[in-house]
């Protein structure tokens, strides 16, 4: 949560009139929203504690309109905040009071699906799940599966380098996007990557993925499609302690298994979701693992037997294998409904997203349990254990100022702990406005200066998504002071990698 975001505050009505008039004149037929009640639905994304009205909202229906909007905004030096479905959890699409909010949701066409080359060329407003649905008749699918996949757009996935359950086996967005096209801040068309692999030159595609709308505006994405596995089976394994479950995860990976999903839920999480979904979880276990194999039927049978043996050797107290597709989906239903369940048992929840080396899972979960006591707030854990990507859900009531403050402090301490254990403050949700101050701790000054130079290489005036993703030096200097105790920064002796 971020108090230093410069985009906060009341919109200047005069400025709004001027910019909207200019946009309407420059881009005839463009859908522009400028009335307070019309822009209100866009005032937040998935990080709903942060709210801000935009200067105006534009909803271009074609890529050409996107280019025209960018040219017009560039001419006026008006900042632009891009938005897909607004499901992001780090406030990456939070509006800015001086910026035009550029919704790409109407660019929702699947332009081409090539079942021979196993690719789909789609506009950036196409929903993640819609790609797999369109590919299904050809026996293909798009692998990255963020939990918001019903709603989130591929453009947003590219901006955040979205992950998901299947990423352990099939890679992140950056591994599954072959090319992108769109416009620079000046409105000039660009295209990176493409259907021909490994083009020489700088890999600007890799740089653009995960850049949170601060470098370029993407209107078109070429994705790789994979053959759909014929069979899947999910194991549910119970453990007497979270440490044991953490060790079991490391053991599985060390033994050479790469499951198509390897998720952990602690007891607080299973007890939170079970009343809502009746997934059949072992509520007596301190932690459970969901571990999935996919492939041909014989391959799955072989792998499930081997993984079962491995989990037993790691001390699993109970193991159940899904007997059919309905049961497999039920096993997953609990995991996939954890966030909504948190929303039902608590007025608010704050979802963290740090990643740590897998071998430290037990130690970090124990540290989080101690923090629960210290901050007096509950924190169920449900996460991508195979990737070491944690999602502690801090439960609180935002109407209680003290609880809000404690939740913020709790979250910040979790992220510092992740850095201290050699990890990162965000594995897949992005920095946005939410974790911008934590970047000051994760990267040293010269590296952050290099990030700012890179940003300026694409956007010299800093018009794209200002105040997000990369902190300014001044911001870090100010933030740094808050965490210095007795002249000593916290974890000052640790290498900042």
């Amino acid at each position: 949560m971020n108090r230093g975001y410069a985009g906060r505050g009341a919109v200047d009505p005069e400025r709004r009139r001027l910019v909207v008039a200019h946009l309407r004149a420059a881009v005839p037929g463009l859908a522009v929203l400028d009335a307070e009640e019309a822009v209100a639905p866009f005032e937040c994304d998935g990080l709903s504690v942060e709210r801000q009205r935009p200067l105006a909202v534009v909803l271009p229906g074609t890529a050409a309109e996107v280019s025209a909007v960018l040219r017009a905004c560039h001419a006026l030096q008006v900042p632009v905040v891009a938005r897909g479905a607004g499901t992001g959890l780090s406030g990456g699409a939070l509006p800015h009071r001086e910026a035009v909010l550029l919704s790409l949701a109407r660019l929702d066409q699947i332009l081409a699906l090539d079942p021979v080359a196993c690719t789909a060329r789609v506009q950036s407003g196409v929903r993640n799940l819609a790609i797999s649905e369109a590919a299904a008749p050809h026996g293909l699918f798009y692998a990255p599966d963020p939990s918001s996949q019903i709603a989130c757009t591929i453009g947003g996935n590219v901006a955040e380098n979205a992950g998901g359950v299947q990423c352990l086996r099939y890679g992140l967005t950056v591994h599954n996007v072959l090319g992108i096209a769109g416009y620079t801040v000046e409105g000039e068309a660009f295209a990176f990557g493409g259907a021909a692999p490994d083009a020489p030159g700088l890999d600007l595609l890799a740089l653009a993925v995960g850049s949170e709308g601060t470098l370029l505006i993407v209107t078109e994405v070429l994705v790789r499609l994979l053959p759909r596995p014929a069979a899947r089976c999910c194991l549910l394994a119970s453990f007497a302690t979270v440490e044991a479950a953490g060790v079991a995860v490391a053991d599985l990976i060390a033994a050479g298994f790469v499951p198509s999903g390897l998720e952990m839920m602690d007891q607080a999480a299973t007890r939170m979701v079970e009343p809502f979904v009746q997934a059949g979880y072992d509520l007596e276990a301190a932690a459970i693992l969901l571990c999935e194999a996919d492939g041909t039927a014989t391959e799955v049978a072989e792998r499930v037997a081997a993984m079962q043996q491995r989990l037993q050797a790691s001390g699993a107290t109970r193991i159940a294998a899904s007997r059919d597709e309905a049961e497999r989906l039920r096993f997953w239903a609990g995991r996939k409904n954890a966030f909504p369940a948190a929303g039902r048992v608590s007025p608010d929840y704050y979802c963290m997203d740090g990643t740590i080396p897998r071998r430290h899972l037990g130690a970090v979960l124990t540290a989080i349990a101690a923090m629960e006591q210290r901050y007096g707030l509950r924190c169920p854990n449900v996460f991508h254990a195979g990737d070491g990507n944690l999602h502690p859900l801090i439960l609180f009531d935002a109407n209680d100022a003290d609880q809000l403050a404690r939740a913020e402090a709790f979250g910040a301490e979790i992220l510092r702990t992740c850095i201290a254990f050699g990890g990162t403050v965000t594995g897949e949700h992005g920095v946005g406005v939410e974790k911008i101050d934590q970047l000051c701790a994760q990267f040293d000054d010269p590296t952050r200066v290099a990030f700012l130079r890179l940003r300026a290489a694409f956007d010299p005036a800093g018009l794209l998504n200002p105040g997000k993703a990369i902190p300014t030096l001044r911001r870090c200097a100010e933030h740094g002071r808050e965490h210095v105790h007795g002249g000593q920064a916290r974890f000052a002796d640790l290498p900042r990698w």
Partner: protein
Amino acid sequence: MDALVATWSAQIRSAGAAGRALWISAGGTKAFYGGAVVGERLDPRGYHGVVEYEPSELVVTVRAGTRLADLEALLAAHGQMLAFEPPHFGDAATVGGMVAAGLAGPRRLAQSVGTGAVRDSVLGVRLIDGRGEVLAFGGRVVKNVAGYDVSRVLAGSLGTLGLLLEISLKVVPRPVCEATLVYRCSQATALTCMQDWMRQPLPVSATAYAEGLLQVRLSGGEAAVAEALQVLPGDRLPVTAAVDHWMAVRELAFARTTAAALWRLGLPASVPPLALPGTELVEWNGQRRWLVTDAPARVIRARVRALGGHATRFRGGDPTVAPFPASSPVVAQLEARVRAAFDPQQILNPGRWHADATD
């Protein structure tokens, strides 16, 4: 080791101040790739060794001057490997050179787990930029979206963004079982087969076609490989012959002795035989084709570009022909600005990135 970093940092600073070019070269095994560099040599081989390797993390962090063969031997001892099967082109090849060249081998387009381009495995780097600053990007965990993903951009950057010091790489378990099938057919049939297999959940980990023979390698669990052997055509190669074969493909043995130009062509899937003159090795389900030919560069580039691909003069041939195809003007400008952000004086490997101005 830190003394070395300080020395290099000072050397880069003073070169920058004097506008003097630096030529980063370790084993020199890929010196042929790209334009020639004239400058003061900076040899990173003194900075070598493993920084951290915890097999259960599937991540290794090594210094850039580490020999590639040493890294691969270490991983093999723990039943792991690099996912992208990089070419060495000589015993002296280093990990830094491997990343800077960004060249992947036969496993690149495998359907099996975790494989991909070099950049797909790069998780973090530490480097000295053209200002002499030591910078650290990314990290040592597989999922990390904090900051721009600069580490991956170092793959294939040809030493133009910085002197690599340390690299964290994702590694993968070695497959339990491998088998290679050989099948005699025309190139057109081979391409159709490869594309057909790509659409199916088969454990294909490499395909190659040369001199009338299609080779396909299967990698995975016993059951998956056994099942695939039932449905795919061809005769199974003995294990050692198979290992030798894929090594020869990886190292481009077929083109070792030629004086003619060796071209590296990248193409979309489903492009039929090119019918260009010369000797060809087709890989990656037809998406990478190596061509030894005397055909003029402009003929090759025009044909490949028309098919949506790219053509690089990889080795040999006319040295006046630019090795790399031109980027579009907008992309070329962005690339130049990104390079300038790291190396404002253009002192790091100037001339190595040499794109065709007439393309």
